[in-house]
């Protein structure tokens, strides 16, 4: 099985301060750390598991800025064979659909039985690039995939629906799977693998290889802003002992404990 994995380097924002920059359309990046997008880590691991099972190659592709190479190197250390960075800096503003068009021009030249993406990127939250890409390549797709078993020319998959319900489907290969978190337990890279990956070449593709003018941009961010507050918790302040005292009293008065 030859597998392409689409990966994205994203800012880690869950417990960081996220501030709008002076353009009003982007965030201040200086103080943020960046890493592989969460669901992409599961997509990569799934590819590595299949490779260990039945051979084949893994190609990791990312549309990203030069520092994406750090993330791609980690992806190589975890088991990808080759990595391609498509130079985001060559393509001006991006949205999900434009990213998919760019990925398509590179991936259609590769040999693959399966493409894995994450189900969504935690920065833009589009839930779009994978399915757009499958459609542009003319292959079937499944989203929110939480299990894959490969058979003869087809895969049996489970998709996660709302409320814990699963859908069991059969899908013909080649196909694209947008992978949900929890499908496996992603591994850490070994030190030896990290050292080896440091020496590997990362291919770069840019505007010389892709016709920029043919790309369509569907949407543009006009403004980023802090979500309006509809409800705001009453915050207890003080030392841990003080706030715990206030909270315990409140719970006690309300008869909740």
């Amino acid at each position, binding site marked *: 099985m030859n597998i392409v994995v689409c990966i994205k380097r994203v800012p880690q924002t869950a417990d960081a301060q996220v501030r709008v920059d002076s353009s009003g359309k982007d965030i201040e990046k200086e103080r943020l750390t960046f890493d592989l997008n969460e669901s992409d880590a599961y997509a990569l691991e799934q590819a590595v598991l299949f490779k260990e099972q039945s051979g084949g190659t893994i190609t990791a592709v990312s549309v990203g800025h030069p520092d994406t190479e750090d993330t791609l190197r980690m992806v190589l250390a975890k088991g990808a064979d080759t990595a391609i960075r498509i130079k985001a800096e060559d393509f001006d503003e991006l949205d999900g659909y434009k990213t998919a068009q760019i990925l398509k021009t590179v991936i259609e030249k590769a040999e693959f039985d399966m493409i894995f993406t994450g189900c969504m990127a935690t920065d833009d939250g589009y839930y779009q690039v994978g399915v757009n890409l499958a459609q542009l390549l003319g292959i079937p797709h499944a*989203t929110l995939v939480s299990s894959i078993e490969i058979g003869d020319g087809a895969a049996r998959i489970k998709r996660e629906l709302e409320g814990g319900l699963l859908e069991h489907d059969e899908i013909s290969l080649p196909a694209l799977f947008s992978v949900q978190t929890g499908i496996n337990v992603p591994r850490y890279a070994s030190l030896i693998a990290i050292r080896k990956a440091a020496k590997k070449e990362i291919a770069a593709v840019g505007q010389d290889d892709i016709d920029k003018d043919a790309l369509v941009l*569907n949407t543009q961010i006009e403004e980023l802003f802090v979500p309006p507050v509809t409800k705001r918790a009453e915050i207890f302040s003080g030392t841990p002992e003080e706030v715990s005292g206030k909270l315990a009293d409140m719970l006690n008065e309300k008869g909740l404990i």
Partner: protein
Amino acid sequence: MAEILALVEHRQGSLRDVTFELMSCGRKLAENLDTRLTAVLLGHNTGEFADDLKTQAHRILVLDDERFKDFNSESYQQALSQVIKSENPVITLIGHTAFGMSLCPALGAQLDIPSSTDCLDIEMNDGGLKVIRQMYEGKLDARVRFRESPSYLVTIRTGCFPAEDGNLQAEIVSSDLKAAEPQHLKFIEYLEAAVGDVDITKADVVVGVGRGIKEKENMAMVEEFAGMIGGVVACTRPIVDAEWLPKDRQVGSSGKTVKPKLYIALGISGAFQHTAGMKGSDTIIAVNKDPDAPIFGEADYGIVDDLFKVLPALRDKITELKQ
């Protein structure tokens, strides 16, 4: 003005709540744009669904075929692309659900119609279509502008457009479009979630734990705390992904919905997929060291501090009170 289309979503013989939210959203848009709302219903033997939707739209377009009984992204996409081509709607509304996440981006790319997903609000006027959507894990909202197009696709986040009663009298029109035999995708069956030993939906007190708990070893102190206040431990998705708790303890859109008297969120950021499953709780308390965590927008009471300091202190205070 071209019409608004809204896709009816149903599963296992029932209309899903999101369908009524889409209709409410669609009626408002139709009113503002002085046009009509058409509900597009793909299914099999759907008479009852059509009855339930009668007051919700100006028209219900029914595509009845055995192959539409269960969602199949391939056959649904094939039929819907033809509906969109022949109806030329100005906006097609779809739920941001497991159904919409598969359909919308595929239809957009197939038909070359600009699409935007997971939208919280929609505005359409002379300046064109704009939507509000969240980015950066709920920390910021974005106002997004579309390129000019005669038709747009939008998926809306559940819970953003409250379902309202309609007062329309829909004309029911059956389409003669039939489903093509899917070539690539076959629906096999639904698999129900496994049932575990603890039913978190029945508890009066739920202690929800998130990634802020850091290590599996730390789960014990949460179990102990929950036991002390007569509660059960539930969690966010990453805790289940890491296999620290079974799936039946997960609260949220892809887990369970709980409405206890008291929900205590420990080290939970408050992603909408999580809050969707707990915001109906009577009293919500959040402990998180990040003052900007979206969870404080859902909670009634909050403590901005390290949970590893707060939890032992709270345990001691409660022990004191109980003596």
